[in-house]
């Protein structure tokens, strides 16, 4: 049984249909990539999965439960975490606090919320530091997030998502705006996550997607025009048209 599946998921903004009847299944433990030209509706698709937008129609079944239209914070409690395409961290807070807050949110009980000192949650602090170590930011844990480089902020972005111990991890172009060096590091990092998490990855760098993914869905003008293994996608004529400047709307 897939961990999450969408059924004819649609989102319209006025006359524009950003996501058009997308039906998709993500197997637990797999790395499923979503590719497509700019404006294909990939990020909107993520925003639907995480509750930022309510879908116009269609269903989202996560772990046997329809979550379409649930508010964002409730979706997060189910174990769906995401990283953002445009870096979205807490600039004035330390890296440790950035990650710690993500870990705290997922606690089943919020006892001591307004009274227990935050630094007394030693198991959360330990987990936050471990996650920072995993992305290579352990030494900067005490620095405010606004003081680190763009590349490091991208790593922090990922660390915030990981600290939530997600059941489903949505990565929206984790390597956006990174130098070739930093991109390599990020790709290596995402590879270490493969198999440990169920991952949906939006990425533009086709070679990266081809080598890492278990399955690939291709979006174009809001619709999924192809789905399959990397090898199948590579042979698909329609995908080539979409990418090589064709105006082939389905």
């Amino acid at each position, binding site marked *: 049984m897939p961990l999450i599946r969408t059924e004819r998921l649609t989102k319209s903004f006025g006359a524009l249909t950003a996501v058009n009847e997308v039906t998709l299944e993500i197997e637990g433990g797999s790395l499923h990539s979503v590719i497509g030209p700019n404006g294909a509706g990939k990020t909107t698709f993520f925003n639907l999965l*995480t509750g*930022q937008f309510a879908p116009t129609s269609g269903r989202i079944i996560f772990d046997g439960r329809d979550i379409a239209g649930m*508010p*964002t*914070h*409730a979706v*997060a*409690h189910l174990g769906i*975490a*995401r990283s*953002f395409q445009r870096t*979205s*961290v*807490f*600039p*004035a*807070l*330390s890296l440790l*606090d*950035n990650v*710690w*807050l*993500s870990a*705290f*949110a*997922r606690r089943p009980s*919020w006892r*001591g*919320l*307004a*009274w*227990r*000192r*935050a*630094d007394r*949650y030693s198991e959360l602090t330990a987990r936050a530091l471990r996650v920072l170590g995993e992305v290579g930011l352990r030494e900067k844990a005490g620095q*405010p997030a606004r003081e680190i480089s763009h590349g490091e902020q991208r790593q922090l972005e990922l660390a*915030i998502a990981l600290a*939530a111990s997600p059941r489903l991890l949505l990565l929206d172009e984790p390597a956006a705006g990174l130098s070739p060096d930093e991109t390599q590091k990020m790709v290596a990092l995402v590879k270490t996550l493969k198999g440990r998490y169920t991952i949906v990855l939006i990425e533009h760098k086709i070679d990266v997607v081809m080598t890492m993914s278990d399955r690939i869905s291709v979006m174009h003008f809001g619709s999924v025009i192809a789905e399959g293994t990397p090898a199948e996608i590579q042979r698909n004529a329609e995908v080539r048209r979409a990418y090589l400047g064709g105006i082939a709307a389905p």
Partner: protein
Amino acid sequence: MSPAWGEEAQPSNQSQSHSTVLNRPWLVILGAVVLLPVFVRHAIATEIWIFAIFGLGLNLLMGYTGLLSFGQATFFGSAAYVAGYLLKHHGVNVFVALLIGIVVGAVSAAVVGYLCVQRSGLYFIMLTFALNQMFYFTAYQWTSVTGGEDGMPGIPRPPMLGLDVRAPLAYYTVVAALFVLSLWVMKRVVESPLGKILQCIRENEPRAAALGYDAARMKLVAFVVGGAFSGLAGVLYAMLFGIVPLEAIGFVFSGNVVFATLIGGSGSLYGPVIGSFVFIWLSESVSAMWARWPLLLGLAFVIVVLFFRGGVVEAWARFWAWRATRGRRAPSAGADATH
């Protein structure tokens, strides 16, 4: 989105100070509590700590959550009227009156907050202001209870635990003790997970939601806690002057606490305390000598906004940082000169 003040504010734990004084703020506070009545008139000294409690409540909203509430007098005044009425007409126990004030502050903040957190930015600010005006005009019209423009005079200051607190210094001691207690409670709140959650909502609300925090609900919690502090301050104020003036629920009063907190430094725990000291001292001492004292206040405000967004707290930290770098440079400059 959060108003700009929140974004500029520094979390208190960040400015690890260079001075021994800043490392021991509790010593400074306790020293000030003991010394203030020696130098300042008792009533003014008492008012400073009352206003500081009021500021602590606002700062949780403005400094930590990034919500500029221009209606804090709603909670302050409501609590003062309700507790004042019960003290005056029903002779309730003073601790019951304080407790009722805290509850009235919290409940009125829950009602107002519930409506306000539905909107953000400018609309949020206008809602806090508009609802404040509603409470103000209710108090203005309801003369049979509130006394309208004349205020509600004749509020007694009953004995506490059998001790007479009518003497100014005795009442000062009570208020100062309650202030220290309030400061300690607020310190616990801002150092708790809630304090961090409010700050992350201030920094980036969509991200906070994506982590699993219901921003509206958390803002409401901040309102209620802040309202409880305002309520306590309101009752203490009524008992200090023996009257609830209509101004206690008016928008000028709401503005004053915002002013004072900004001057002291919003977003740091001790900012509103310093702000209250500056504000009340200026308004009560200088106003006696010079009728145009608000000019000074305006000047202080302009300086803060232009140069020290973090208020006196930031100015203080920057001064010590500057001294530290100068101290480090001076010996090396001397060494250069000998070569």
